[in-house]
């Protein structure tokens, strides 16, 4: 080993990396930004838990003539807790808000609640949760049950044991759904988006570096035809990929699935079209395949953090929520969950489909325009 050769080698590598501003950014800036964002999201204070209470409890009259409404007492006690907010609703309205994500759960006090409690019979409280987020569905009944358990003894005049039963009802999914069941749909969307973006980016870049792009422009083919051709080619493989992942996860990994397969394909197809064109667009800003890969932390990672995978979009602070609303994966995730777990049909996810369609068209225009600007 010779020292001069060695220093020459090292010096050359250092010069090359230093000249490549993007690599410098990737090495130093991107990890900081990504860690900051991740930490920010995970430590995010999502505000107090919001519950709706629906009271059917008719109360009871004590021997001394006083009227007791146990539900009210409980609600008052719970309402004093710091991280809980209670609002009184009708059941139908509360369920609608729950589906929209404006509520975390609904507490239902049945008609005989006070009576059963006072008589020492089994008293029931029903907790209604949305269900498509398992960590939330499992945690909430526990939190509420514990809070109720603390307050209930004070209601009992005699020291007789109380028998309080907390029943959980799921609007969607259910106890049998685990983490994989509910995150499966979102992961499928992510896979399609990620691989299509990466593959298109790299193959389009090759088109430029090997000179075939220049040759294409010397033929009558139009920019739109090039972008559409890529779209159909990669779109086909994106759909095949979705089919394989979907069938594999449903039948081999056996995740729960209640929705309409055709609708899922339509969704993924639109997502893939957007990803193809986004890949074309970004590849025009890359000179090497490494630089295409460098777009991953910029294009893909924020979407993983913000599109509802980790924290519900509704719970994000305003600025990040706006950012999330600009990301196609946000809508894909929501629609995939709606279709695969909630079993929604075409009319119910039409808005998300329309937004994904708009993203696809927008990306197509963007990619065709960058193609035009690139050469002339």
């Amino acid at each position, binding site marked *: 080993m010779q020292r001069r050769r060695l220093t020459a080698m090292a010096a050359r590598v250092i010069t090359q990396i230093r000249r490549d501003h993007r690599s410098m950014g990737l090495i130093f800036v991107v990890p900081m930004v990504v860690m900051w964002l991740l930490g920010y999201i995970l430590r995010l204070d999502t505000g107090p838990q919001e519950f709706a209470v629906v009271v059917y409890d008719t109360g009871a009259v004590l021997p001394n003539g006083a009227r007791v409404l146990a539900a009210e007492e409980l609600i008052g006690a719970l309402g004093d807790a710091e991280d809980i907010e209670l609002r009184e609703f009708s059941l139908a309205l509360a369920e609608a808000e729950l589906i929209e994500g404006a509520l975390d759960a609904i507490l239902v006090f049945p008609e005989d609640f006070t009576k059963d409690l006072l008589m020492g019979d089994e008293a029931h409280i029903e907790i209604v949760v949305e269900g498509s987020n398992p960590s939330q569905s499992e945690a909430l009944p526990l939190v509420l049950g514990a809070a109720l358990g603390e307050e209930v003894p004070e209601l009992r005049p005699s020291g007789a044991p109380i028998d309080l039963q907390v029943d959980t009802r799921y609007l969607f999914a259910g106890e049998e759904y685990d983490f994989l069941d509910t995150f499966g749909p979102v992961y499928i969307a992510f896979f399609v988006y990620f691989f299509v973006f990466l593959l298109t980016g790299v193959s389009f870049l090759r088109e430029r570096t090997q*000179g075939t792009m220049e040759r294409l422009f*010397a033929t009558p083919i139009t920019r739109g035809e090039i972008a559409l051709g890529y779209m159909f080619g990669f779109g086909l493989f994106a759909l095949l990929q979705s089919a394989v992942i979907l069938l594999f996860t449903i039948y081999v990994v056996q995740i729960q699935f209640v929705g309409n397969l055709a609708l899922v394909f339509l969704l993924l197809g639109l997502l893939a079209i957007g990803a193809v064109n986004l890949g074309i667009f970004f590849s025009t800003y890359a000179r090497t395949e490494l630089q295409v890969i460098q777009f991953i932390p910029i294009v893909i990672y924020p979407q993983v953090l913000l599109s509802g995978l980790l924290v519900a979009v509704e719970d994000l602070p305003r600025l990040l929520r706006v950012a999330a609303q600009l990301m196609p994966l946000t809508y894909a995730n929501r629609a995939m969950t709606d279709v695969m777990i909630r079993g929604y049909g075409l009319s119910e996810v039409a808005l998300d489909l329309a937004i994904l369609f708009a993203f696809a068209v927008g990306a197509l225009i963007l990619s065709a325009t960058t193609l035009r600007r690139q050469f002339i």
Partner: protein
Amino acid sequence: MTGETVVVTRELNRAFGAVQAVQNLDLIVRKGEIYGLLGPNGCGKTTLMRLLVGIAKADAGEVRVLGREVPDTSLLAEIGYMTQAEALYADLTARENVRFFASLCGLHSEAAIDQAIALVELSDRADDVVSKLSGGLRRRVSLACALVHRPKLLILDEPTVGVDPQLRASFWGHFRSMADRGVTLLISSHVMDEAERCDHLGLMRSGRLLAEGSPAELRSLGGTEDLEQAFLNLAEDGHAA
């Protein structure tokens, strides 16, 4: 042959930043001739060719090809353009490459594809994937891609770089027979024995056309029997001017 003009440029200009790649260039190429574009690296040959095809935009001036103003996408089916880079899809076979470019120009006849492949003497390797072919063989595929749709104008950017002398001679044989059939060829080159085979030569330097004429005319203009020396003399004069 003083027939109709196929390529005409007037006061053509194109700059890249401070570098004037093509400067007030007037060029005329006539039907059925082989026009050789000569000049050192970076003198603007490739830029000129891209301007003629219409994939680069002129800052000022005019380009007319086959009587139509460039850029005109309908012209592109009648132009064959071979770039300096191989410009092939490495994971497709030679035939698939040729077929692809043929169909972009609206030609779908398998016979024409076979013919183009035969012309560049590639028939026995036509179904090999391009990445397995040597550099010289790839140049042949590129040429086949450029001429498969039977263009009226062939613009070839240094087509014989990396091609062995034997194949080069055969390339030039094909160029000549195409010109005889009325195809117009604009070919850039570095190699002087190729310049001798052209009908008309243009010497480019710093984006300008310094001298033009048949090889014989250029020799007398440069005051020497040696074409290479004639070029050096002319280039020096041009530089001094």
